[in-house]
């Protein structure tokens, strides 16, 4: 997992652009309306997204249409599965600790009864 993938998405404007593109291909003007910052700002962020492999671009007459590429999202998905596994393991330990606690208490009860 490249830290860079997270850094690209950590920016709120870029995240907003990516969200807007989830519905499909969009033109720059369209994105400017949606994201509500000026065109140069949107273009700058689109360039970063393009350079890092998050989006594709194709000309359509005068317009340039942007769309998402799947690769970074697959990578993200794999990373998140790893994160989940880490927490599953923690909760396994939680379950083990819980059982130890119950056993210890049962023991104490028994000893008290003696």
């Amino acid at each position, binding site marked *: *997992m490249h*830290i860079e993938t*997270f*850094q690209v*998405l*950590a920016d709120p404007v870029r*995240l907003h652009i990516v969200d807007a593109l989830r519905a499909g291909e969009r033109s720059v003007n369209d994105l400017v309306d949606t994201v509500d910052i000026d065109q140069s700002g949107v273009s700058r962020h689109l360039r970063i997204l393009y350079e890092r492999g998050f989006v594709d671009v194709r000309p359509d007459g005068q317009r340039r249409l942007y769309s998402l590429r799947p690769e970074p999202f697959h990578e*993200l998905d794999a*990373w*998140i599965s*790893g*994160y*989940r*596994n*880490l*927490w*599953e*393991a*923690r*909760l396994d*330990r*939680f*379950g*083990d*600790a*819980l059982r*130890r*606690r*119950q056993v210890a208490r049962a023991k104490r009860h028994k000893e008290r009864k003696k």
Partner: protein
Amino acid sequence: MTNITIERTYKASLADVWALWTTKDGFESWWGPEGFRVDVRRLEARPGGELHYAMIADAPQQVEAMKRMGQPVSHETHGTFTELRPRQRLVLTHVIDFLPGVTPYESTIVAEFSEVEDRVRMVVTLHPMHDAAFSRMQVQGFTSQLTKLDRRFSFQS
């Protein structure tokens, strides 16, 4: 952006499950990635209450790994119970301030509890995107997780 929700159901009392999050000995009995233990310095189980513990690498491999990365083997860790409704819900916010060159940020864990007949259902919600950029402890945790899986696998076979 993406939350992870993990659900577990334990055959236990709600009091015991709650105690594992909100008492010193309970918290110490499970918290932290594999290869680490925690020593709780202060745990105030009330809304806005403080949580302070030392996270200590204690498995030899882990100690070695931390040294290799130039990290101390023990780190004083601070958090807050930003929300706490006894035996129902807690929100634990950690300050992640041990990453060289990374501005300290907050990491939030939500745990919710309910009784289902003689069992307790626990739902833990995490925010990995927020944590991702960032935490070498998590990277460490992830590595040790693989070790743990290996071990479990060989245990089962």
